[in-house]
């Protein structure tokens, strides 16, 4: 097939199967003594090209599409999401990372605020690392609406041509950034856990987990601009603000489209607990065996000033609501202390809590993966240890 991203030379191929082992996508198979490509599985990662000892596999070079002049795009932007008028913490986390990337790229760092009554956000964003702050302050931007937000950001992108834009992978950022990327016909990488500028190509290397965190992939957007990525809250650390930093603030006047939907009402989560913000988390998993045993964790959490989180198993079993779930399909958390009780540590869970400062794990299986990330790992029966721990803590009060 002429459209295949790689070509296998049937004469040079010796049937050693090295390419088959190297292929991460199962896109090659043997037909007799010849490697054959399944083009529908191939992602053009070129792992097989490198693996072939006989140089029998070559990559098909694709010409860069013409159109946008990549050199016109410069600087790194952070979308500083606000909710009910307050800039969200993830914006400051991204500015800290953006500052480092701007250093690596040798460019400026800007923050973009869409909202109403947000004129005073600029000094905080500058102190957090921005060289420039773009503010669009309009009543229709007060609360998020997909069409209006997409229009506003897209107009700014068309006008100023940033090379990179980052946003928090929040309910808001994940949704409208995908619209912005499609409108700009560019690439967007979701939920990045590491970002860097490649020294050779000057491109943004975007690393993210896939397949429920079982593999990591590094992704680039070589021929389209801007290069866009979202990052989950709490994945990157905030830097202490530097009030001595200076920067400029630009107030943008835009004509915006009419919104397609309107917010009738906003209800704060009254269960009151946002585990993503908690400093101390006591988390339970399948090892708790039944819903009633969550109460034991609540007592423990109360004693050490924490809140209860859970692994996916507990949510799937219907013991608690998904708002309490830690992990890749739940919330990413970064507390000072994370106590994992009866959690074996599936990768998708570890992805959501591995950056906690101190991790204490209690599990009966000595081979449980949770022990791999634990600072203190206790192999044992949680039904013996936790009650004793509660007893010990009660005497300390």
């Amino acid at each position, binding site marked *: 097939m002429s459209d295949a991203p790689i070509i296998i030379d049937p004469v040079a191929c010796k049937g050693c199967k090295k390419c088959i082992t190297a292929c991460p*996508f199962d896109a090659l198979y043997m037909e007799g003594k010849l490697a054959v490509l399944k083009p529908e599985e191939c992602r053009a990662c070129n792992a097989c090209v490198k693996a072939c000892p006989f140089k029998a596999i070559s990559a098909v070079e694709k010409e860069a599409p013409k159109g946008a002049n990549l050199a016109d795009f410069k600087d790194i932007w952070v979308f500083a999401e606000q909710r009910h008028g307050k800039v969200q913490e993830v914006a400051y986390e991204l500015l800290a990372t953006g500052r480092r990337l701007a250093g690596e790229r040798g460019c400026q760092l800007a923050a973009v605020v869409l909202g109403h009554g947000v004129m005073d956000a600029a000094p905080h964003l500058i102190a957090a690392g921005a060289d420039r702050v773009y503010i669009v302050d309009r009543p229709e931007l007060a*609360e998020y609406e997909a069409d209006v937000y997409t229009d506003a950001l897209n107009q700014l992108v068309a006008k100023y041509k940033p090379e990179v834009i980052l946003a928090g992978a929040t309910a808001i950022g994940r949704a409208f950034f995908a*619209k912005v990327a*499609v409108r700009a016909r560019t690439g967007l990488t979701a939920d990045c856990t590491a970002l860097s500028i490649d020294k050779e190509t000057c491109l943004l290397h975007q690393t993210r987990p896939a*397949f429920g965190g079982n593999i990591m992939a590094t992704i680039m957007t070589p021929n389209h601009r801007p290069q866009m990525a979202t990052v989950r809250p709490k994945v990157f650390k905030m830097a202490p603000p530097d009030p001595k930093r200076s920067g400029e603030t630009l107030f943008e006047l835009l004509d915006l489209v009419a919104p397609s939907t309107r917010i009738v009402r906003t209800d704060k989560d009254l269960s009151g607990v946002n585990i993503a913000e908690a400093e101390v988390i006591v988390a339970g998993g399948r090892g708790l065996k039944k819903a009633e045993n969550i109460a034991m964790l609540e007592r423990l959490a109360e004693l050490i000033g924490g809140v209860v989180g859970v692994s996916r198993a507990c949510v799937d079993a219907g013991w608690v609501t998904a708002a309490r779930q830690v992990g890749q399909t739940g919330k990413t958390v970064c507390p000072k202390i994370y106590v994992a009780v009866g959690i074996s540590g599936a990768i*998708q869970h570890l992805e959501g809590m591995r950056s906690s400062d101190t991790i204490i794990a209690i599990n009966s299986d000595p081979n449980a993966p949770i022990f791999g990330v*634990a600072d203190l790992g206790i192999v044992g029966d949680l039904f013996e240890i936790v009650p004793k721990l509660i007893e010990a803590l009660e005497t300390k009060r």
Partner: protein
Amino acid sequence: MHVIVCVKQVPDTTNVRINPETNTLMREGVESIMNPYDEYALEQALKLKDKHGARVSVISMGPPQADVVLREALARGADDGVLLTDRAFAGADTLATSYAIAQAIKRINPAPDIVFFGKQAIDGDTAQVGPGVSELLNCALVTYVQALEVEGDTFTVETHMDDGTDVIEGKLPVVMTVVKEASTPRFASLSGWMAAKKAEIPRWGAADVKAVKEMIGLDGSPTKVVKIFAPPVKTGGVRMDGRGDPAAAVEAIVRALQDKGVVKS
């Protein structure tokens, strides 16, 4: 009312692992399932069928064997299904996927009332294709929907935000992505399965949906995967066996908590 549900066949990711020596995916024996979030999207569509007599169409993009998830949807009550399958779609990132699906939706019905997606697929976890399709269909978007009501041409949804719930109102047509809290998916009936097994599921390629070559597959994908690797393995810290001496283990935990200042010394 005509609603379209986009469903994806995914590997049961809890079982996908990477071989640390060869850095390759080990997918032997990994089962393919309907993306769990798409089941909630389908359920919302089927409720509209129950209540308003909506026609429910399902669409999936994937290899020929992905027709299984469409049959599953038909068995649960969807009216018709289309499989979007073509080698030319291979290697698509979220932009190229959004484009191909939007083209197919336009062929099924240029003006559907609602297009449903699950909030994300559990293999890619991007949550980007639903919003991308809304952009290409040029219609409203609401995401993380956990409750839905439709009255005439007006919809009201409750959406799950990071800090609570928003109640949002708008006019059809709309693209929505649905979360788990929405409802429990129904089971297929035996007669549903029997009919679904025999159902005709058309297969559409790029030409059938008038997709241009530059916008699909690898060519239409701005993002490129440059490296794949196993997540770093941490070695862990202090390990204690609490089976023999639970008191010592408890003492160690208390000390660790005291070090961090959450328990009085």
